[in-house]
């Protein structure tokens, strides 16, 4: 009797495990499900899973899950599953492993500086990881009833992600750098308009520092290479050869250009005068906003992605926030700011059913209503002209002029390789080199030109090595 009972329990365990395994199969990995859809001639009720890996874990992930749920409701034959990751690089690492094991997702969310890396990646069979979204759409204006919005993507984003004439990945969160000013402090120092040039910023900071009850510092922004790149774009300087890697593969990086040195000299002069607050952490998005909210600084140069939150929090904290263009070098002609953010890449090798569903989802995800809602929620660019039109017609910009600043700034940019931003191998590592060099300059009071010569050497070596592995 006892023996029989034991046997039954064992049997139950085996059945449960088997069931768990098989159910696992059916909802993980598009390829397996897609394969079974093909072979079994898809009886109605069969659902194709589309895995979408996102590099967010906060309210932005929630928004993408809600939007995916709306798509699933409209297209019951598809099931878009959104998975959140802590950072873009975590998405990438997971993708590499998934491709190696033959179970990749359909869509991944990846950031702008890694565009070269994404294009260069190849599967063990030697195929590129990703398929160009434009090629996949192949001129269709509607996919599964979802209008194609590729053609109306704003030009700054479209041009950034167009490589070798093909618009590769679908822009999602796209932003630019803007400046937020605590107008109460500026007015107390007798300044009515936020400064627009470096010289004006320095002058404003001198005036604020002279205040008896002024803030402890004057201005801050994260020590992130993106701000350096923005400044190069403004001054019309290239970061790499081959037109910033736009007309061919970039093989040389320029970290000692006059524009680079001018920007860093100005940055260091602000720091030396006690105007610039360095939080002591590289890429410190949280610490810099916290300092602005706490009234430790009068100005914050930041991503437009948080326009909504910064304006709301400023108002709640009881001071007036003004949103303006990123300050530029007044000594040279303004060329243009560039975008930052991330796009959604579609993996290659999807079967037709999955690919169509994926493309339909991509176009649904950024359709005018969704793109407008995303902009209102965050402050990231309204990514299509249709979405901007929708926001204008709803009167959103009249009520929230701050949200218009970043797109105005991008619209003001001349379309040159400098203002497009660089496509560069090992860009993440080179950005790291720049960030560390700047921290060294700020904290250890080093000479800008000497330190950047060292950084140039490191960055060039890093690029050479990358090209020896991926180039030609």
């Amino acid at each position, binding site marked *: 009797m006892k023996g029989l009972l034991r046997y039954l329990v064992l049997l139950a365990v085996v059945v449960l495990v088997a069931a768990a395994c098989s159910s696992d199969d059916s909802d993980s990995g598009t390829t397996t499900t897609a394969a079974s859809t093909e072979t079994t001639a898809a009886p109605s009720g069969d659902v194709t899973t589309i895995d979408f890996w996102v590099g967010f874990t906060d309210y932005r992930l929630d928004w993408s899950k809600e939007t995916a749920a709306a798509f699933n409701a409209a297209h019951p034959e598809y099931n878009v599953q959104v998975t959140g990751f802590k950072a873009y690089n975590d998405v990438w690492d997971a993708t590499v492993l998934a491709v190696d094991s033959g179970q990749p997702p359909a869509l991944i969310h990846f950031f702008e500086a890694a565009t070269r890396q994404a294009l260069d990646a190849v599967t063990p069979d030697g195929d590129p990881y990703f398929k160009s979204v434009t090629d996949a759409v192949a001129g269709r204006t509607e996919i599964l009833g979802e209008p194609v919005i590729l053609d109306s993507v704003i030009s700054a984003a479209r041009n950034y992600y167009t490589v070798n004439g093909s618009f590769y990945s679908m822009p999602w969160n796209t932003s630019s750098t803007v400046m937020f000013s605590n107008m109460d402090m500026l007015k107390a120092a007798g300044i009515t308009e936020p400064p627009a040039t470096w010289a004006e910023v320095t002058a404003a900071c001198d005036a604020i520092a002279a205040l008896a009850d002024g803030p402890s510092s004057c201005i801050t922004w994260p020590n992130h290479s993106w701000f350096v790149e923005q400044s190069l774009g403004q001054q019309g300087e290239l970061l790499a050869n081959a037109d910033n890697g736009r007309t061919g593969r970039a093989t040389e990086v320029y970290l000692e250009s006059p524009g680079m040195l001018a920007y860093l000299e100005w940055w260091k002069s602000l720091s030396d005068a006690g105007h610039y607050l360095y939080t002591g952490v*590289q890429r410190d998005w949280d610490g810099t906003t916290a300092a602005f909210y706490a009234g430790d600084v009068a100005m914050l140069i930041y991503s437009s992605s948080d326009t909504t939150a910064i304006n709301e929090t400023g108002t709640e904290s009881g001071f007036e926030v003004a949103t303006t263009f990123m300050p530029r070098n007044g000594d040279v002609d303004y060329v243009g700011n560039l975008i930052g953010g991330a796009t959604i890449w579609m993996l290659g090798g999807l079967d037709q059913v999955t690919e169509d569903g994926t493309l339909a989802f991509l176009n649904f995800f950024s359709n005018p209503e969704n793109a407008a809602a995303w902009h209102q929620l965050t402050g990231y660019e309204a990514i299509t002209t249709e979405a901007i039109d929708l926001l204008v017609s709803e009167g959103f910009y009249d009520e929230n002029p701050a949200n218009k600043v970043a797109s105005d700034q991008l619209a003001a940019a001349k379309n040159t390789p400098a203002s497009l931003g660089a496509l560069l191998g090992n860009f*993440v590592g080179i950005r790291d080199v720049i960030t560390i060099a700047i921290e060294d300059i700020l904290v250890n009071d080093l000479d800008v030109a000497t330190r950047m010569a060292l950084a140039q050497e490191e960055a060039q070596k890093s690029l050479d090595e990358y090209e*020896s592995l991926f180039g030609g």
Partner: protein
Amino acid sequence: MLILGLVIAAVLGPLYVWQNNDNPTVKRYGIGSAVAVLGAAATPLAMGRCAFEEGSSGVDHLLAYSLMAGGAWLGLIVLQFLFDRVDGKAAEGAAMAGEIRTGGFRMGWWVPWVLLSPTLIILIVFLYLPAIQTFTLSTKLTRLGAPKSVDVCFGNFTELLITDPWKLVAYPLLAVAAIYGARFWLHHSSPNTWSRKGADVASVFAMLSIFVALYAMFSPGGGGQVAYRPVYLNTVIITLGIVAFGMIGGLAVAYLAFRKIRGATVYRTFLIWPYAISPAVAGVLFFMIFDPTAGIFTHLMDSWFGIDVPNYRENAVLAQASIILASGWKILGYNILFYLAGLQTVSLDQIEAAVLDGASTWQRFTKIVLPALSPITFFLLVTNLVYAFFEVYATIDFMTKGAPAGKTSVAIYEIIRIGVKNGDLGRGAAQSVLLFVAVIAITLWQFRSTGERVTYGGA
């Protein structure tokens, strides 16, 4: 060049045999020579002749020779072990083996292997294979997802070192000479003389000379080399800081908590809590305390005393101190736990006798309690070192991210920054091999030096 190395091995092999055996036979000399050559040849067999090809530097040769010497030495140690078994010298091992053969395991030689196989399989798949892969990766230039990789031989290692091979040889030799010199002096001085005191001081400095020699051997950067010297210095400072703070603090707290006070069990439990916290959470906690903008500590100092606490992340000393504080605090509970257990084994009779003899509290502590705790101290030293080497990444990442200007970037932090975040797998692997060697060396050295002084009681 490569042949020369093998010839030297062929000569040194018999020498080793001659030194470690009484009247060895010709056959044994021959085997010794062959094993030494095989051991030395292992490296070139695995890596090819790359270290001796044209364009290779003196440092490449040096690394290749060191590995060949290491291989030969390992081979000879194994050989000697076998010789000793044949001679019946390894008494303990032989007795145990005999017991296994004659005792309860008379089921065939394969039974233990079958029983061990689950553990072995897990070890092989998750530990040994990745370890071998790390060694292979460390000789390559490669990136995650790259379609190809380039063999760089010892390039990932040589770029961490200074470029002058003679200095690279001289510094460690000088350090070893200093240690043997100090030891010689120590043996030839009588107790309680000035000479002995001088020898004691010299021994300490001789030990320190190893750290100094290593410091001089790592590259300060520039000229295409990686600036590993600062990383080494940070690692030494932060590791020693954590171990010293964690162990001295742990013993002090445990000694206080050991007294018979009401509610002792409750607050002893509280004391152990920090150990249950993950390194990441420890980092976040201390970040919240010391953050210059939003920190509790800075806020209180400002509002109570009007002191403007500087930003710890902009000051190298403060940044390192705060990492030591946070990481040391986290391991404190663990040390307290073991010291509390250890204190219960200290013989009360001895302490009572010491009290009757008029020994002061301090004397009782240093002469009776500390020696009785030495096995636990030794154990904690090893575990604390491993913790300080490998588990501080999350704490550093949350508190400083290596700031200011890399002053809190320790070896493990660099490995993850380069190998994982920047995707430079070869360099990351090379640095982790370096850390692996360092930990093995320190552990061996601890077993030799500290192990001698550890008393486990009994006979």
